[in-house]
């Protein structure tokens, strides 16, 4: 039997994914050991786990290098790849928001927006027929309005604490985000039974 490969987004999502996989009976013990290995196997169930950077998960899955991926909806939306998105795993819940100075409003004219998510930002404002200049950053996006780089930012908001401490707040909500199970379009067809079995078990676990 062929090994099924599952790509997990490194970080908190992978911890929660591992917990979930263990509850449906997959052996993730090797994943939990502190090591520098990149691929871990569950030989009994013929499954390989890979830990990859979150933004790379859709890429691995689209090309079929991984059959299954666990990644946030934000990454999926930003990447726009051709995948099956079979399951909402509910964890890692947060919101994609337009944020700015507390009590401000998005004006209808031209604005500058800093973000890690240029595609999501472009689509959102295009839908509202608003012209914006998008400034792509890779982290600490909240700094942008503080130092005058942009008037607004588009970013994921979990607790909102960072915003609050910097006198910023959510101005508009774009959509809600959570971890999703994505599957390669060929893999689902070639390994339907095994993949749908995992999907079904996860679905039951998630809705408990």
């Amino acid at each position, binding site marked *: 039997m*062929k090994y099924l490969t599952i790509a997990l987004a490194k970080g908190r999502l992978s911890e929660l994914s591992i917990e979930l996989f263990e509850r449906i009976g997959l052996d993730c013990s090797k994943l939990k050991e502190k090591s520098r290995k990149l691929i871990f196997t569950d030989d009994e169930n013929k499954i390989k786990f890979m830990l990859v950077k979150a933004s790379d998960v859709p*890429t691995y899955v*689209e*090309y*079929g*290098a991984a059959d299954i991926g666990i990644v946030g909806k934000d990454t999926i939306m930003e990447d726009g790849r051709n*995948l*099956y*998105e*079979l*399951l*909402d795993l509910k964890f890692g819940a947060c919101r994609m928001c337009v944020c700015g100075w507390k009590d401000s409003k998005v004006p209808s004219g031209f604005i500058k927006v800093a973000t890690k998510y240029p595609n999501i930002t472009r689509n959102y404002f295009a839908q509202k027929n608003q012209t914006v200049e998008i400034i792509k950053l890779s982290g600490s996006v909240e700094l942008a309005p503080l130092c005058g780089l942009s008037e607004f930012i588009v970013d994921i908001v979990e607790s909102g604490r960072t915003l609050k401490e910097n006198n910023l707040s959510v101005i508009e909500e774009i959509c809600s985000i959570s971890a999703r199970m994505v*599957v*390669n*379009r*060929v*893999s*689902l*067809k*070639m390994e*339907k039974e095994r993949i749908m079995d995992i999907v079904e078990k996860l679905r039951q676990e998630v809705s408990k």
Partner: protein
Amino acid sequence: MSKWKTHTPDGVFDLLEKECYIKRQVESTIAQVFHSRGYFEIQTPTFEFYDTFAHIEQSQMIKFFDKNGRILSLRPDLTTPIARIFATKYADETLPKRVSYIGSAFRETDAVAGTLQKEFTQAGIEFIGESCPEADAEVIATTIKAFLACGLEKFQIDIGQAEFFKGIMEQAKLDGEAVESLRKLIDQKSFAAVESLVEGYNIKPGIKELILELPNFFGGVEVIEKAKEKPLGKRAGAALDNITEVYSILKDYGFEKYISIDLAMVQGLNYYTGIIVKGFTEGVGFPICGGGRYDNLIGEYGKPVPATGVAIGIERLISALNYNNVEFEAPQVHTLVYYEKERAIAFKIADGLRSSGLCVEVWTGREGAKAYANARGIGGIVKVVDGDTIDIINLNDGEITRTSINDLLGGEE
């Protein structure tokens, strides 16, 4: 020196002799399968007026201008030009007619992703002027035959029907925007999102459950039976009858083991009007073939004619063959003919060996013939000694055999 002078642009690549040799073998194997069934080849221009391809998403086309300022596009597929031909040059042809093509198609792909190919080779067939299920089954069977002829054994051809989804949407009485959102979610098999979207509309019970189950309607032929139990309207019912019929014809071809069903195949619904086809195999993350029935396309060019066809992605098929360790003939020079003075004799010997099926090079340099032959993996050297005599040098064991030219060429004179 310009920085770009020695590079090729993103998305295109060189094919060196070994890969090229394999590609040509695969192409000619496929062409033989096509020809043996009456699908003879048509060649269309590499670029055409952008207007011809106007039904294709414009950001995917590689465009430029002619000297009159008209927009031109490298062909994004090979079916469209054939549709144009059947409405114009072939408008008076006796139908049905079968044609095939092999050539490059070009798509502008995401510069960020970068690695998807912008130039790729498609080999395909079109069966034009017939709307019966036999025509759909024939193009699918021909594609299966082509895969088998190339040495691919484990693959799966997924069949869907565009009318099935369209029919159900008609029954659900949803507006265009809702249909498009639902189509996207069903295409992603995003069960939860389909459910929350459907909850927001007032859809007849029965139809609602059917839509919720739709993403799950894929797998073996039993999917059709499962779908038949649902409260289907005339249009969706006819789509199921059609797919059943195509399946039973494919059974008569003896090809049912390669066939699977996906009633939730909902990509390209503006284009496809009936059967939709996609092929998969292990080791390649993308479909290796795609196609279906497109009864409305040729009409766009002035003469409505029904048509169906499938295109095989040659590069993807070759990766699948490599993944399955299918062996190919490698380019191989068998003999090197070496001479010092007797040039005319050398040419005669070389041609004589070639006519018996060998690949022969004639040494053009002065020294180093042996080193060259060894480097190129050539098995032997024929050294012209004089007008009648030659030395055959076996490079594997170093043995030298002296013989006459007549003996070597089998005495033909």
